[in-house]
């Protein structure tokens, strides 16, 4: 038979009785799943509290060290980071992700991604010139991350771009770095964090959150690593071209 909505409903209706029975009692489900959610929330709040207190205690010491070291740049929006020793933890969840306006671009990489079903791509225009070319491309899929694209670019340097597209409720975590320099900037309404790691690798992190209507959202997390040849200042300039 053709697949129509009634066939699909009939097929769902015929799934195993044991599964249907298991979830028949609303009150016991509330006890089982509602409590679990509360525990998670409490645990998360506790972690946040510990992180906040730790950050306060450590921050004074860190800034004392960094102020004596003129190389260190820490220029971040308030409330989106925690500092542990010489490690900076950015809470990706708290970054602004809703762009004011998106101009969808064209280019070789954009075309490849579109073929894979990865749409609404927001990348620095500085990287969509002839100077950059794709040398390697991987596409994987997992339970949490719908699409995971790893793209290796070459220029005068190596660059890896990792794009994760999520359709779950979770943004994938915190970005932890032992940073030499770190700066946040807002480009086209999106918060972008540029980091220079101790081994001189620079990276750009940002997340784009698009309302695709009817209560549905799509979230794309971008992580661009410059393996070498790009200075922190150049990475900041590239980040400014995200649009």
């Amino acid at each position, binding site marked *: *038979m053709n697949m129509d*909505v009634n066939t699909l409903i009939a*097929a769902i209706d*015929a799934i195993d009785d044991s*599964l249907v029975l298991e*979830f028949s009692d609303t009150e016991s*489900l509330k006890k089982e799943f509602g409590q679990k959610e509360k525990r998670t929330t409490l645990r998360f709040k506790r972690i946040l509290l510990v992180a906040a207190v730790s950050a306060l205690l450590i921050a004074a010491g860190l800034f004392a060290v960094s102020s004596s070291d003129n190389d260190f740049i820490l220029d971040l929006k308030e409330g989106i980071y925690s500092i542990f020793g010489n490690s900076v933890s950015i809470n990706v969840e708290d970054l602004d992700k809703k762009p004011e306006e998106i101009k969808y671009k064209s280019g070789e990489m954009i075309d490849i991604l579109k073929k894979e079903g990865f749409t609404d791509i927001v990348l620095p225009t500085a990287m969509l010139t002839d100077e950059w070319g794709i040398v390697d491309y991987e596409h994987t899929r997992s339970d949490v991350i719908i699409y995971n694209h790893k793209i290796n670019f070459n220029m005068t340097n190596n660059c890896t771009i990792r794009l994760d597209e999520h359709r779950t409720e979770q943004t994938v975590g915190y970005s932890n770095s032992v940073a030499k320099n770190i700066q946040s900037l807002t480009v086209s309404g999106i918060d972008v964090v540029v980091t220079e790691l101790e081994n001189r690798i620079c990276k750009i992190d940002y997340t784009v959150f698009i309302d695709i209507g009817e*209560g549905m959202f799509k979230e794309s997390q971008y992580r661009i690593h410059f393996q070498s040849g790009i200075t922190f200042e150049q990475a900041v300039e590239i980040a400014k071209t995200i649009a």
Partner: protein
Amino acid sequence: MEDSKIIELFNARSERAIDELSKKYGTKCMQVAYNVLGNKEDSEECVNDSYLGVWNVIPPENPNPLLTFVLRIVKNTSLKRCRYNSAKKRADVHTQCFDELDELVSSSFSVEEQYDLKAVTKEINDFVQSLSRENQMLFIRRYWYMDSYAALSEITGMNEAAIRKRLSRFRTEMVQCIKKTEGVTA
């Protein structure tokens, strides 16, 4: 009362069978009917019609488990009523649930493709079995019991947008599983 005793009453053609059935599963029946119809009066009528339906099929049927057997009759009776009513009268919950699946089907399957219902059911069953317990619960409560997002939020404590996103992912994955069904002809 145990299910087997209730079935014995049906077999003996005792009207107490319907009272006992209603006492034991009446709330759940009403919940499923209300999820589909969104209207108390219509739901009560459908549940009563369903009890009669059960009366008419036991005997010869000897269902085990009794609950899913009865709920299927309630759901089908309610869906029939829902289709009979004008589109305007459709309850929001059912419309949303129906529309989600309708949109999924129209965007994912071509009219040339032929599917076997049993094979599709097996794929969906395997897909649901592969989910975590919490995700199984969300899927079944939404697409079998036709719970609203508000009801699912009340059960889990998660916000509605998060549940929507998760279920949207399940729908996409379910289509991929159905597409793998053996014996599909184009």
